């Protein structure tokens, strides 16, 4: 994960590109004081905004993944900076540099296999029939051809590779 080859100049360029708006920040701190996660975690969104676009160190910050995307910071920022959108873009650069948390990899694996981040299980099949619904919902769970379509799209977009390589090689950004 801390392979510095993973954070070359291209990556910094990309970070700079997605973070241009953050230059408008005047460090007033309204974002941080509006942040519910900041009260319960070490997330200081104002500090992340300050780092954005300036250093690839931001890709290794655990705080990047503590944002619940509630948008309070973005709504209240007096400079109108799209803080959450920037953060999501930085997360994506981080993922493309091989950084996906193990728990998130599991969620991705569910999507790849079942077409759903939270697939059906036996307990819930019973709950469904118990209240008069069919055992399987009208989703890809029931229509296997449609599930195949989802799989084709996931591989067409290179999602499987992205998830597989994450956390193993930390190879150079190929996005």
């Amino acid at each position: 994960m801390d392979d510095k080859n993973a954070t070359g100049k291209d990556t910094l360029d990309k970070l700079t590109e997605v973070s241009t708006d953050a230059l408008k920040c005047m460090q007033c701190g309204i974002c941080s004081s509006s942040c519910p996660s900041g009260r319960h975690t070490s997330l200081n969104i104002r500090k992340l905004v300050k780092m954005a676009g300036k250093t690839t160190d931001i890709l290794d910050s655990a705080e990047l993944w503590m944002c619940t995307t509630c948008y309070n910071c973005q709504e209240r920022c007096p400079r109108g900076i799209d803080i959450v959108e920037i953060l999501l873009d930085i997360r994506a650069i981080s993922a493309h540099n091989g950084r996906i948390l193990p728990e998130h990899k599991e969620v991705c694996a569910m999507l790849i296999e079942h077409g759903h981040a939270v697939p059906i299980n036996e307990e819930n099949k019973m709950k469904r029939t118990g209240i008069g619904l069919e055992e399987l919902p009208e989703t890809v769970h029931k229509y296997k051809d449609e599930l195949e379509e989802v799989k084709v799209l996931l591989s067409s977009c290179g999602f499987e590779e992205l998830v597989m390589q994450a956390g193993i090689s930390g190879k150079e950004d190929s996005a």
Partner: protein
Amino acid sequence: MKGLSLFLGCLVPNRYPGIEMATKLCLAKLDIDCVDLEGASCCPAPGVFRSFDRTTWLTLASRNIVLSEQKDRDMLTICNGCFSTLEDANRSIKEDEESKEDVNRHLEKIGREIRGDINVRHIIEYLYQEYGPEKIASYVERQLNIRVAVHYGCHLIKPTKDRGLGSFERPAFFDELVTALGASSVEYPDKMACCGAGGGVRSAMKDRSLGMTEAKLARIEETGVDCIVNSCPFCHMQLDAGQTEIKEKNGAEFNIPVLHYTQLLGLALGFPAEMLGIDTGIEKNRKLMDLLDSQV
């Protein structure tokens, strides 16, 4: 106005099927033209998948939207997360020709194409704009004389510049839909605070995520409400299953019943709690059912 197709998402059909049943029963009772959307997948969830790869996120969302386009119907969601993804993706397709072409290059491989000619609706937003509290009230068969803590969740109204439902600081539309059923919506501190689940925080950092939930539940408990009502199965799970998880974590006990709006509406429209999945294995909801039974 176009008819609707029902987008289920993951959590409703696979974890809280009562919400699916409640939605279908309510739509039928209110004479809303809505059909099943066969073959839909995960929306995909905005917090995690969009965080990893925007193209994948946009392409899968677009496939779901295409299913509804092919029925020439608007898409109805019952989840703030699905709404966030499908609304945002649909807008990107409509406003950004380059994104649309990019997505269609992928969709071509499955023989589909996105046009960008339908709208995505959220059931709360739909009921408020197309029916309004007064018309909803006219359908009520059972006045719900209970005190409710309304939880809007984040992605129903934010980012406000895209949602167009007004300021998130003190919104009232959801509360009005609740009071239309006879219930009173109780004000409480941090009402607009996040449930703590979003952005992949619940899956990767459960303890921290539950810290946010516990803070919110504590504020709600102080006001002594009969239940929490939400518009999002992800918030629903966090506030409902979260109570059990918090108890296991540090012993704090809340016992506050949690209902999706469609379940509350279903009760008011006269459907029994069992059909709405309100009592299925959720012990704490018993309190609410006893209270309602005592009012009949």
